[in-house]
């Protein structure tokens, strides 16, 4: 089956993701897929969850942190600006503290904590993770194309959902037990039942956010996850390992797309030995790929003669991807 057939046969897959190692062409394929779907009359949003996003380069438009920007008819692109998102969020937390306790300024100890928490390595990922929920929950588009982070990070992103969920379940339970004690004291003292536990409400809110995001990533009917590979030994090995791990996290793998295949037609021309060797090497790796993934390889995309940037090149690439 081809990538085009898979897409047409599964219109219910609204969330399309391309995963793979660094530099294999995830962003390029995300953009090309978005372009193709938009040209089919679907309303599409392609957005980047990568702090080092490059949709700006691909579309040759400055879209970083500007919300959804319309690229052409039916096509919007968005790059989430994690830093600004974190700063706004910190400010909201500060304001909430000031309002709740009528303080003129945030106590030093608390301020230090806010600063320290934001410097943690997980902060950026979590912030993007959270922002994605907002993007997707609005539900304004027919298709959402996730331009994912490289494999290692993507796995972290996925495992985070599971860890968060378990963690929240535990503290929610603790919080509920605390509430039971509180109610017991109220009964013993003939006091009215205490007001609602706001922390418990916050925890339930957080749990809901995380579940929404994780549900999408692992939804077998609505999500199509495609691996991007290139015919090189290390990439193939990494992909094989990653595919197993992704399967453990219940990510539905919809297929594999091979990028940077040197056109075989060149062999008929007068080409240097160097290129012949590379083609021979790729042939061998292609055989490995077919052995490993067989029918699940949905498209072979040739190495382009120049960078894929600008709508013209994206259109050309989409034409070969969805032939």
């Amino acid at each position, binding site marked *: 089956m081809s990538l085009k057939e898979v897409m047409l046969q599964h219109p219910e897959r609204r969330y399309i993701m391309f995963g793979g190692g660094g530099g294999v062409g995830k962003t390029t394929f995300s953009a090309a897929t978005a372009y193709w779907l938009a040209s089919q009359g679907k309303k599409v949003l392609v957005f980047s969850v990568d702090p080092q996003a490059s949709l700006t380069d691909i579309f040759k438009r400055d879209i970083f942190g500007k919300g959804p920007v319309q690229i052409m008819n039916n096509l919007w692109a968005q790059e989430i600006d994690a830093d600004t998102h974190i700063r706004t969020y910190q400010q909201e937390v500060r304001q909430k503290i000031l309002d709740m306790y009528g303080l003129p300024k945030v106590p030093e*100890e608390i301020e230090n*904590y806010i600063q320290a928490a934001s410097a943690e390595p997980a902060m950026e990922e979590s912030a993007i993770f959270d922002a994605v929920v907002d993007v997707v929950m609005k539900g304004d588009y027919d298709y959402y194309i996730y331009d994912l982070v490289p494999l290692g990070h993507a796995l972290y992103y996925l495992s985070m959902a599971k*860890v968060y969920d378990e963690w929240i379940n535990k503290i929610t339970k*603790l919080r509920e037990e605390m509430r039971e004690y509180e109610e017991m*004291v109220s009964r013993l*003292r003939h006091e009215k039942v205490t007001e609602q536990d706001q*922390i418990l409400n916050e925890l339930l809110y957080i749990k809901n956010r995380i579940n929404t995001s994780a549900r999408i990533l692992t939804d077998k009917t609505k999500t199509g996850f495609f691996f991007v590979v290139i015919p090189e030994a290390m990439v193939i090995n990494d992909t094989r390992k990653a595919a197993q791990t992704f399967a453990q996290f219940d990510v539905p793998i919809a297929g594999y797309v091979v990028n940077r295949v040197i056109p075989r037609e060149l062999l008929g021309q007068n080409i240097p030995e160097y290129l012949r060797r590379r083609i021979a090497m790729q042939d061998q790796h292609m055989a490995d790929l077919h052995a490993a993934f067989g029918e699940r390889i949905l498209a072979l995309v040739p190495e382009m003669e120049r960078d894929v940037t600008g709508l013209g090149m994206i259109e050309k690439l989409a034409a070969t991807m969805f032939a």
Partner: protein
Amino acid sequence: MTGPEGAPTTEKSWLDVVREALYGMAAHDMSRAALRTRASMEHLFILITMGDLLGIPILPPYYSLRLLPYVVPQISTWKRRMLREKDVADAMF
């Protein structure tokens, strides 16, 4: 003072006082124990959400910030308690 409608109220409130005193004596210890347990749990809760304050990162920081405003008053007593206890587990159970 002992009007026709005043008498029953005085009598009732007097009975109430006795009842509450008796009940209170029995319940006081229980409610104190319950409050103590509740306070320990509160500290445990802050430890697992705001552990970074003592250098123990447990919760993803993005979401612990969301909870921070609600625990601001408890933070100073919590830190004192955590540092006083010989073993953190003493504070938990």
